[in-house]
């Protein structure tokens, strides 16, 4: 018995079922092409937002004279090396400045199996510094902050997980920012560090770092004693009421002839970083547009193919009394059914792709991307897909309306 569906829907559903193989092909193509497009769009958004959030509460970073971008990358994202050294006295100078609320020292230069050991002060973990931030570094129960005078480690969540660190573990850092197993022996320090604290995941680059006191890093055996009072960078947070202080400070530090650079405002430099990837962004845009065009083409081809197979069926239906508009509506309905199934698949593909990419980015950079595309984007994408399907069906539907019944009644020669 035929189900009590409107005739157009019934014919569409049966048509899809009768040509199941090509229907599934069309749905798969639609899902992959538009899912890819959606994921590309969503990732553009998500990565820009996540990168901007990666600067945490800091407004500026003081580093050795050099590229502000390099300073930001090395101190906030823990990528690449710092351009040089900053005298330790700068921390006090900055702290004493009326516009500065927090000045946090950083020393880089060592790693443990590829995970950076970064010297800092307990001030980095001050709750008031992180107030109002989406994620703050918080100690897991049972741990404590490092003692500034001892060789102790508070491990970021990702580093801890990757290294399998537990409270009380001991480890021996290696000199250098990158880890090479074959030379690790030669560069290994003598000192043993103890893990005294583990951090909750924050979804920021903090998760990838083994945090340790400044002095512990400065005095590691094998480090040049001449630099025992140098830092790699100072992270700066201004007072809310500081106004133009950042501008004034940057003017002073960045004046010609100086030895230091104040990367300020941090957000602007992160934006500049994104400018560097503008080509990749544009490429993603092109890929998204390409995928969208591809999905439109899929619908047209799928419909044309099914229509060619079914011209005779349409003619028979007309001959037993089906009205032309019913058949036109059936073709439209068929396209929309393909579209609905394709859109469902596309949402799944987009979510899958994004979580895959987000996972990889988190592992490689510690930047936490939204694991699924935003619902509005998915809804818009699904709507666009349905609209495309409807538009793609117009021509085949029109052809079916106009095609002379008698000519297609005979069996194909």
């Amino acid at each position, binding site marked *: 018995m035929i189900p009590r569906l409107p005739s157009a829907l019934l014919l569409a559903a049966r048509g899809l079922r*009768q040509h199941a193989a090509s229907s599934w092909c069309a749905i798969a193509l639609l899902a992959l092409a538009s899912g890819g497009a959606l994921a590309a769009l969503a990732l553009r958004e998500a990565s820009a937002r996540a990168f901007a959030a990666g600067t945490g509460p800091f407004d500026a970073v003081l580093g050795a004279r050099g590229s502000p971008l390099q300073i930001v990358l090395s101190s906030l994202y823990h990528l690449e090396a710092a351009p040089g050294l900053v005298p330790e006295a700068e921390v006090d100078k900055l702290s004493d400045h009326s516009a500065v609320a927090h000045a946090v020292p950083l020393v880089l230069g060592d790693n443990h199996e590829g995970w950076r050991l970064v010297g800092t002060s307990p001030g980095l973990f001050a709750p008031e510094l992180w107030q109002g931030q989406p994620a703050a570094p918080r100690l897991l129960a049972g741990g404590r902050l490092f003692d500034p005078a001892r060789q102790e480690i508070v491990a970021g969540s990702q580093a801890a997980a990757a290294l399998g660190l537990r409270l009380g573990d001991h480890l021996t850092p290696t000199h250098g920012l990158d880890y090479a197993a074959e030379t690790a022996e030669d560069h290994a320090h003598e000192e043993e560090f103890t893990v005294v604290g583990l951090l909750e995941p924050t979804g920021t680059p903090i998760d990838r770092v083994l945090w340790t006191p400044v002095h512990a890093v400065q005095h590691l055996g094998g480090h040049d004693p001449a630099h025992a009072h140098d830092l790699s960078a100072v992270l700066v947070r201004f007072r809310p009421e500081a106004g133009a202080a950042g501008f004034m400070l940057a003017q002073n530090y960045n004046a010609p002839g100086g030895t230091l650079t104040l990367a300020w405002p941090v957000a602007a430099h992160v934006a500049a970083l994104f400018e560097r990837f503008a080509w990749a962004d544009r490429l993603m845009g092109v890929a998204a547009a390409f995928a969208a065009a591809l999905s439109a083409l899929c619908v047209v081809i799928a419909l044309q193919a099914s229509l060619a197979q079914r011209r005779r069926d349409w003619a028979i239906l007309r*001959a037993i009394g089906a009205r032309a508009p019913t058949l036109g509506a059936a073709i439209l309905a068929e396209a929309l059914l393909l579209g609905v199934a394709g859109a469902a698949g596309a949402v799944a593909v987009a979510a899958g792709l994004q979580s895959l990419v987000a996972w990889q980015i988190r592992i490689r950079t510690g930047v936490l991307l939204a694991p699924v595309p935003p619902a509005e984007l998915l809804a818009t994408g699904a709507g666009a897909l349905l609209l495309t399907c409807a538009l793609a069906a117009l021509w085949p539907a029109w052809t079916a309306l106009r095609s002379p019944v*008698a000519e297609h009644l005979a069996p194909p020669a």
Partner: protein
Amino acid sequence: MLALRVRDLVKRHSATAGAAPVEIRLDALDLEAGAQLALRGPSGCGKTTLLHLIAGILRPDSGEIHLAGELLPATAENTRDRLRARHLGYVFQTFNLLQGFTVRENLQLAQRFAGREGTEADAHRERLLAELGLAPFAHRLPARLSHGQQQRVALARALVNRPALVLADEPTASLDDAHAAAALSLLREVCVSHGAALLLATHDERALRAFPAVRDLKPLAPAA
């Protein structure tokens, strides 16, 4: 009442590759309700074209066709579709069953397009299926039926809407003598028992012999 009335029908086929334009004519044809008539003519004389015109799936260049007392309009396609669905059953030489639908659904679709649904329509359909020995196969797809069974489905579908007129195009062309005779007598019997007039087009002498009335079609006239 007349099941079919045709006057001054003219259909011109434009020239196709390798063929001159042709003009198919039928000056007058009247078929009483329940009557049976065979159209005889050699291949290519225009039999199929005439049946298509009467069914309203081709538009004549001029002339009038009345189906069960209603004029088939030349322009309003909707009305032609409606009249076809309500008054006409068509048995094609190749059956033209819908392959994506079961036997029962083939009939049901025809009923739906004619606006005949409901318990009375269901009962009529099931009676017809039983009468033609199709009840055991009603849930099958046409491809899983024998040639003879498919022909009976085509017949059942043609009759399911209680049409005033059944058109049959070469219903015996691909059958051997025994089957041709059986198919033809079944066709004629059910048309009589359901009160439908029958207009059959063929050049098969075996079929023509069985018919009480035969109308010879004129050879094709070259188009003006």
